[in-house]
């Protein structure tokens, strides 16, 4: 894939010779507009296509750049080219300020984010109109000289946009193939699961937004001089966001080149309509294309084409002998059985309340290095809450969590993952748009702190062998059955090479035969050096696997000890089976 950046650069260099052909100015302008939309659509896609946070506020960031440049030109007489970095900076700062607020609110996702960013556009627009930035009359730049980069002014704009588009596509590609990009795509599919795998979701979203805004800002800066007369009413509308959404959806928002394909197609279409004086029909046409695209090609032109052209992919990695089911990578060093009382995870007074409902009422739990600790209790006793708090999904209301002597209380989930704690979900939550292999590779990248994507895939493949899923490496998670999805959860949890694995009812819903497989697998997980906390209702497996169990009841610790001993205690039996009403009188 290293050819791709060369192709982008070569195309950029070749296209730079177009002004030499002496084409009429309107051709330059048309090409300029095409490149302009490529920049806007591609930059939008870096946040919105990759992470699924659809922004309708791209017009605001574009407008921020546009007004930065025009203010600096008209009022402070900066040289034009120097205004472009300033435009990028202002747009990026605006984006970061916005993102720093809204990305903290967990439920502002999907439609809410879209509407929020739409609202921002009009707020910024209103402020610009009502302050001296615009003053309501607009800003005229007709007195500003166009720098002589190309032979004519129109070719100058073309070359500027070409440079900008080339840079934008390179950035979009580089993110697409990087660890950063993998994290963004994971956020798209399941943000909570991504965070638990170790993806720093908040920072990633913020960086993606900043890059996206900066590029839109540069495009705005160039466009200010191209228009030479700037009015807020034309800039802060929903035309820009809707056009870029349309281009990206049409071209395919899950690929770096998708928006560019869409941009070229839509610009050409629009031009052919406006040139023939059918602007109104053109608008209707775009609407119709958008509807058709949503209904018939929800993945976009590019992916549709790739799917048509792609040959059936052979499942990767047949070279490995599947019999080598030993621990794949020398797992994290575990001083096995060196000190039996060595406490890996120390939880003290852990409390979690949900609006007055006390799910955990202050529990103390020690998990010793190398053991399998069973966590039992009736439904609603706080087992899953315990896992959710320890893994960082919920912040504790009170109490302390200490792992390997480090305090992890109130750390974000991705930092807890990086510290060496992994978890599985009771209902598997794979990343639906990633292959089975990439699902595991993601955990290797983030939890295992591997930087290189190819290397992560290789390690991931070995974890697939460990869990017996190697034949499914190329499949989508949707194609797996429940048993395989549970094992995929395990492979993902293991791929970050954790010292502690929290298993949340991995056996639930499996057949007896599958349970035997899973029990054997869990034993192997412990043997390769991980400590396990095992939440389970299947008593046969609890008896077979656990070294020790703790029993929760109403969010409190009810009992602790070996499984066979604890389950005999009257208090535990009462918690599970209720009070005995017809008890024989004590002798």
């Amino acid at each position, binding site marked *: 894939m290293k050819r791709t950046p060369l192709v982008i650069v070569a195309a950029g260099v070749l296209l730079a010779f177009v002004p030499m052909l002496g084409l009429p100015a309107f051709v330059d302008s048309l090409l300029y507009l095409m490149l302009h939309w490529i920049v806007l659509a591609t930059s939008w896609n870096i946040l919105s296509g990759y992470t699924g946070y*659809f922004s309708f506020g791209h017009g605001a960031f574009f407008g921020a750049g546009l007004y930065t440049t025009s203010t600096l030109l008209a009022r402070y007489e900066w040289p034009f080219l120097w205004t472009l970095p300033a435009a990028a900076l202002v747009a990026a700062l605006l984006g970061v300020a916005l993102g720093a*607020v*809204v990305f903290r*609110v*967990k*439920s*502002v996702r*999907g*439609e*809410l984010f*879209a*509407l*929020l960013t*739409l*609202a*921002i556009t*009009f*707020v910024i*627009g*209103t*402020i610009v*109109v*009502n302050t001296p930035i615009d003053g*309501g009359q607009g800003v005229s730049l007709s007195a500003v000289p166009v720098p002589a980069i190309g032979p004519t002014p129109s070719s100058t704009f073309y070359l500027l946009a070409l440079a900008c588009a080339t840079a934008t596509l390179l950035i979009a590609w580089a993110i697409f193939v990087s660890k950063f990009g993998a994290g963004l795509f994971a956020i798209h599919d399941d943000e909570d699961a991504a965070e638990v795998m170790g993806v720093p979701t908040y920072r990633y979203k913020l960086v993606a937004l900043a890059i996206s805004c900066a590029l839109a800002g540069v495009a705005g800066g160039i466009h200010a001089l191209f228009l030479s007369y700037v009015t807020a009413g034309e800039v802060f*509308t*929903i035309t820009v966001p*809707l056009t870029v*959404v*349309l281009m990206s*959806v049409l071209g395919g928002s899950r690929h770096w080149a998708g928006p560019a394909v869409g941009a070229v197609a839509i610009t050409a279409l629009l031009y052919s309509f406006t040139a023939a004086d059918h602007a*109104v*029909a053109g*608008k*209707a046409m*775009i*609407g*119709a*294309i*958008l*509807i058709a695209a*949503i*209904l018939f090609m*929800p993945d976009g032109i590019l992916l549709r084409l790739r799917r048509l052209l792609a040959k059936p992919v052979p499942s990767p990695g047949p070279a490995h002998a599947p019999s080598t089911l030993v621990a794949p990578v020398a797992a994290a060093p575990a001083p096995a059985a060196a000190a039996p009382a060595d406490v890996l995870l120390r939880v003290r007074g852990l409390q979690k309340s949900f609006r007055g409902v006390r799910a955990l009422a202050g529990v103390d739990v020690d998990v010793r290095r190398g053991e399998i600790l069973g966590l039992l209790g009736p439904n609603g006793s706080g087992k899953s809450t315990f896992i959710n708090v320890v893994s960082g999904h919920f912040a504790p209301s009170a109490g302390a969590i200490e792992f390997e002597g480090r305090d992890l209380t109130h750390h974000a989930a991705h930092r807890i993952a990086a510290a060496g704690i992994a978890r599985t979900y009771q209902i598997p939550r794979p990343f639906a748009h990633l292959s089975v292999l990439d699902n595991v590779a993601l955990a290797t990248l983030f939890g295992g702190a591997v930087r290189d994507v190819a290397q992560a895939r290789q390690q991931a493949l070995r974890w697939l062998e460990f869990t017996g899923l190697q034949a499914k490496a190329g499949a989508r998670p949707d194609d797996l059955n429940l048993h395989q999805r549970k094992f995929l959860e395990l492979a993902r949890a293991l791929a970050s090479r954790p010292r502690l694995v929290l298993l949340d009812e991995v056996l639930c819903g499996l057949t007896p035969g599958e349970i035997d497989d899973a029990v054997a697998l869990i034993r192997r997980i412990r043997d390769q050096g991980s400590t396990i906390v095992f939440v389970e209702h299947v008593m046969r497996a609890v008896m077979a696997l656990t070294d020790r169990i703790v029993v929760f009841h109403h969010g409190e610790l009810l009992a602790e000890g070996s499984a066979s001993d604890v389950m005999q205690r009257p208090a535990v039996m009462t918690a599970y089976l209720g009070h005995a009403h017809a008890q024989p009188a004590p002798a």
Partner: protein
Amino acid sequence: MSGFALPSASLLAQSVLSGVFVGALYGLMGLGLSLSWGLLRLINLAHFAFAFLAAYLCYQLARWGVDPLLSLLGIVPAFFALGAGLHWVMARFKVTPFNSLLLTFGLMGIVESIIQSIWTADFRQLESTYAQHKFKVAGLFVPVPEFITLLLAVGISLAVWAVLRFTDLGRALRGAAEDAAIASAFGVNQSRNALLLAGTCTALASIAGVCMALSFTLAPSQMYAWIGVVFAAVMLGGLGRALGPLVAGTLIGVSEAITMAVTAPSWAPIVSFTLLIMILVLRPGRVT
């Protein structure tokens, strides 16, 4: 930046009143949107386009001598069918909530083009006998078209509220919005109910459109100007709630009117959007 001098009490009272009237229209526009989003999980941007289409139809019928309120008799059933038809297509293709936003946006562009090619992009003003009448209550002028809008908005919102709250249909709709699969297991015919509801939402849009035609000048591109403020009313009022848009719309209308009276009219948009942003950031649970 005109001064921030406080206007006189009677002027302020008059602007509060006009805020109530425009707020009632926000509420009426938002009602169908809120029901569709809250109960059908579809965000229908074309709602605004349908309202404008109804407004233009009303305008055209009025030019042929049909009374605007009488024209509702024809417009409402036609738009009911339109909305039900659109929903049938969306259900047929299993459109997700987000894609419904994009799809109806495309539809909005189409409707805008149709309006523009028939009635041009120029401003159009409905001329009816209502427009010339106003009456005076406690020293304040009450224009008749706005008063009709207020009555319709309050009456319809109350009626929808009663249907949702007290009838089996309302219970079935609310149940299906919580969990469609469970509701159908209990015998709720959700696909029929959804068609009914989608048709009703669009019919509500057409009523709002007729009210708009009574008191506003029309231009096709103006439909976008309503999106932000009406969405703000919908979210502030709570999704799927019948009285929410009206209450929230009135609140927004009054705060806009006061902002305009105290500062300059061009600052008005910032009110609704600031409210919207504050709700989304501070009380996101309200709209999910």
